[in-house]
């Protein structure tokens, strides 16, 4: 593995956005940064700027308001990037399923690479999700992953 490819895996910066869930998963994401889990060991930083991010961690079922923000954040993040949907809300809408005000899942707005299950998702599961996302990030750069035409 060349230095650049290695660097990409060793330095994932995360942007975290809640699209309207209960904030349970958000608290678990932030728990990953605490001394108990300390994801900075792996070079993971929680960064507040989509232009600096590599991994988008999205929680919540995506409501009609937040979908614009989500789309915007996705487009502002430079390639290569991966999207992780955290929690059941982000996967299918969860307890908000079929509510009139939600779209029911992050993949209704932007392409999702990794789904992390749980309500709320446990920090261990989130870290696992990031590790899977990193494999996908590397595959993406080398052209191993491509989306079908018309993929959202």
């Amino acid at each position, binding site marked *: 593995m060349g230095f650049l490819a*290695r660097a*990409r895996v060793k330095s994932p910066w995360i942007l975290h956005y809640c699209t309207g869930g209960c904030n349970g998963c958000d608290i678990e994401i932030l728990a990953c940064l605490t*001394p108990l889990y300390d994801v*900075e*060991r792996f*070079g993971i930083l929680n960064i507040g700027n989509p232009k*600096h991010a590599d991994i988008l961690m999205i929680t919540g079922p995506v409501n009609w308001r937040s979908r614009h923000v989500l789309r915007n954040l996705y487009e502002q993040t*430079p390639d290569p990037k991966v999207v992780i949907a955290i929690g059941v809300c982000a996967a299918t809408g969860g307890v908000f399923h079929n509510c009139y005000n939600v779209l029911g899942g992050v993949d209704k707005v932007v392409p999702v690479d990794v789904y992390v299950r749980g309500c709320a998702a446990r920090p261990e599961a989130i870290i696992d999700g990031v590790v899977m996302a990193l494999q996908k990030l590397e595959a993406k750069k080398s052209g191993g992953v491509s989306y079908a035409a018309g993929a959202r």
Partner: protein
Amino acid sequence: MTWPIIVAVAAVLLAPLVGGLLRGLDRKITARLQGRIGPPVVQPFYDFGKLVGKSRVVSSKASMAWAWSYFLLTLTAFTLFFMGQDLLVVFLILAFAGGSLAFGALSARSPYARFGANRELLQILACEPILLLAAVAVYFQTGKFTVCSILEANQPLLPYLPLVFVAVLIVLGIKMRKSPFDIAASEHAHQELVRGVYTEYSGRFLALMELTHWYKIVLLLAFIALFWAQPLWVGVLIALGAYFLELWLDNIAARLRWSWMLGVSWSLGVGFVVVNLVLLSVVV
């Protein structure tokens, strides 16, 4: 005339290595102080490599030109310093480099970058009087403004300029973007105003910012090392001590408001230098 050029070229080549490792140590020590394990020491190089490999996103062409100006001016100041040239010129070029960073942030229509730029200009306002007066203090002691004159002097500066040294430590904190002075942007990934002056830069331009920051840190630490240049290794130890003092301060201090920063640097910083100059001219 060849030796200064060789030293300068070696310094330009080695500084990114030293600066990156210092940043890595910083992140490791900060993590340990917070009860965490922390990233590997070479983490800044991984971050740099990752940023270089990202796709290009340009918010405004002008801000990218200013980013290059920030890098090249800092590099110029750095080279002049290690060639043993005039400290006044070095500090003025460094100030304009900081200005370039602020103008770059102002060129993009981003409210966060704009706030960051205003604060960066305030930081320059806080640093420059101290640095320029420190150069004057060097002149009082050695009779010249040049780096060479300090190296050729018979005795170290620190016993004669202790208060100037303290004032320069304040500048080091501001330039390193450490608490309590991380006002325009924090060196860490803290989220005050998104990312302050760095908000609109991404990918390889952010990598360029980081590289410039490494040069700047090494330049300032080298200036601090000059306070004990006979022999120079004592000065290097003092500079490293100052660096770790800043890390410790960063972890125990909260962020100040910009008005506090100006108050501290103008009253305490400039005050210390002036008192030192007065004492020097009266006593010695």
